C-alpha cells in the first residue's frame, strides 16, 4: 500500500519536471519570436495604426479617485470624468466608445506603464509639469485644477482674500503642498493640519474651522458627498491636467488635441464636466 503511493508520487514528480522543462523550452522560443515581431511592428507602425489594427484603445486611468476615475463596487464598472473623456476618444478614433480597455494606474506606475507599451495613453488627473514633459508628451489641458476652498453653503468666504484674516481657521492635511501654499498666501489665517483630508473634513463638518483647502478636484468630491458645503470659484494655484502619450507619438497626440477641441466646441465637454463636477466649467 505504502509502496504504491510512493511509486505514484515519484512518477508524478518526474512527469511534472519533464513537462516543466519542455514548457520552459517552448516559452523561451516564443518570447524571442514575439520580441522580433514587436520590433518590426514598431519600426513600421505608429501607435495610432496599432490601435486601429487592434480595434481597441488601451488607456491608463485611476480606479480610486472619486469623480475622476473610481471603480464602482456595486457594478464593477470604472466611472468618472477621465473615463468619459477616454470613451469619447475611443469613439473618435475607432467609431465606438466601447472599443476601449481601461487599465488601473497610480501616480507612481503610470509613466512606466506608458513607456513599456502596456497602455497607449494616460488619462489620470495628471498635472502637466516641466519635469514630466521630459518623459512623456502632453495634450492640451483638458481640466484646469487648482487649490481652492471648501466652505459652508452660507459662508461669506469667496476667495483667498476672505481667509487672510485673524481669527479665520483653515483646515488641511499635514505636510501637503496645500498647507505650504495656504500659509504663504494667507499668513494671517490660523492653519490646522490633520492626518488626512477625511479627518480635516470631519473637523470642518463639526464646525472646527471656517474652510478646508486642497485641490478643487478633491473638494468637488467632498461637496458632492455633503451638499451643506460648496467649493469657492477662485483657485489660487494652477494644476492643468493633460493626456499623456509616449514621446514622439505625434499622430496620436494630434488626434487627441483635435478631439479635445471638438468636444469643447460641440458642448460634449460641458456635459461631461457638469455630469461629474456638478456645475458648468468656468470660462
Amino acid at each position, binding site marked *: 500500500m505504502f509502496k504504491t503511493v510512493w511509486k505514484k508520487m515519484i512518477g508524478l514528480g518526474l512527469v511534472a519536471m519533464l513537462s516543466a522543462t519542455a514548457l520552459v523550452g517552448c516559452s523561451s522560443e516564443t518570447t524571442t519570436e514575439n520580441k522580433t515581431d514587436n520590433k518590426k511592428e514598431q519600426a513600421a507602425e505608429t501607435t495610432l495604426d496599432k490601435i486601429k489594427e487592434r480595434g481597441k484603445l488601451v488607456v491608463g486611468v485611476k480606479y480610486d479617485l472619486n469623480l475622476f476615475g473610481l471603480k464602482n463596487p456595486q457594478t464593477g464598472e470604472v466611472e468618472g470624468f477621465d473615463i468619459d473623456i477616454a470613451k469619447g476618444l475611443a469613439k473618435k478614433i475607432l467609431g465606438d466608445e466601447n472599443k476601449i480597455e481601461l487599465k488601473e494606474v497610480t501616480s507612481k506606475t503610470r509613466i512606466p506603464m506608458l513607456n513599456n507599451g502596456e497602455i497607449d495613453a494616460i488619462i489620470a488627473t495628471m498635472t502637466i509639469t516641466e519635469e514630466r514633459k521630459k518623459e512623456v508628451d502632453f495634450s492640451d489641458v483638458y481640466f484646469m485644477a487648482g487649490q481652492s476652498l471648501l466652505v459652508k453653503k452660507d459662508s461669506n468666504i469667496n476667495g483667498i482674500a476672505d481667509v487672510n484674516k485673524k481669527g479665520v481657521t483653515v483646515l488641511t492635511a499635514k*505636510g501637503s503642498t496645500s498647507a505650504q501654499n495656504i500659509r504663504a498666501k494667507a499668513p494671517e489665517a490660523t492653519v490646522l*493640519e490633520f492626518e488626512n483630508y477625511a479627518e480635516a473634513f470631519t*473637523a470642518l463638518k*463639526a464646525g472646527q474651522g471656517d474652510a478646508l483647502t486642497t485641490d478643487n478636484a478633491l473638494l468637488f468630491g467632498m461637496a458632492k458627498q455633503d451638499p451643506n458645503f460648496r467649493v469657492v470659484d477662485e483657485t489660487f494655484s494652477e494644476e492643468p491636467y493633460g493626456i499623456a502619450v509616449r514621446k514622439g507619438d505625434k499622430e496620436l497626440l494630434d488626434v487627441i488635441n483635435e478631439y479635445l477641441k471638438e468636444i469643447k466646441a460641440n458642448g460634449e465637454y460641458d456635459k461631461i464636466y457638469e455630469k461629474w463636477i456638478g456645475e458648468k466649467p468656468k470660462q
Partner: protein
Amino acid sequence: MLDYSILIEHWDMYMQGFSNTLKASVLALIGSLAIGTVMAVFRIAPIRPLNWIGAAYVEFIRNIPLILIVFVFFVGLPAIGIRFDSFTAGTLGLTVYTAAFIAEVIRAGILAVPKGQMEAARSSGLTYLQAMWHVILPQAVKIVIPPMGNQFINLVKNSSVLGVIAGLDLMYFGDLISSETFVTFDVYIFVALFYLLLTIPLSLGVGALERRLAKSR
C-alpha cells in the same frame, strides 16, 4: 548623530508644543484628580444610586479608547451645539478618561484603610463626609501615591492624543516638522526628549513624596 539644526530651526514650534503639552497635562491632572476622587467616594458611599453612578462612570469610560472619548468632545458635542476648540476638547477628553483610572486607584486606597477607622470616626460623632475627609482620605493618600504616580505619567504621555485633532501639542508639532522636513527619526527623538523633560521630574517627585510620607507614618 542627531541633526540639531532641526531642533534649532524649529525651536519655536517645539516650544509652543511643549508649553501646550505641559498646560494640557496640568489641567487634566487637576481635573481628573477632582472627578476621580468624587467618583471613588460615590462608589463606596452607603447610598445605592451613587454607587451605580460611580460604577457606570468608571466601567463605561475606562473601557473605551481614549481617542474615541476625545472625538466625542471634538466632533460629537458640536453636533448638539456645544463646541470646544481642539486644545480644550483634547484636554477635556484626557481629563474624563484619566479620572476613571484615578477613581479606581483612590477606591483601592480607601478600601485599604481598616474598617475600624470609619467606625471609630462615625461613633465619635463625625458625619460620613467628615469622616471620609478628615480620617479616611488622609490615610488613603499614602497608600495611593505610587499607583497615582503611574497614572500621572500615563496622563502626560496620553496627552499626545491632542496631536490627532490638531491640538497644537508636542506630538502635533512633531508630525508637522517631520512632514515638512521629511526627517522622521531625529524629529521624534527630540519630541521624546521633551516628554522625558516632563515625565522624569514627575517620577522623581512622586518617589520623593512617597519616601517623605513613609517616614511620617
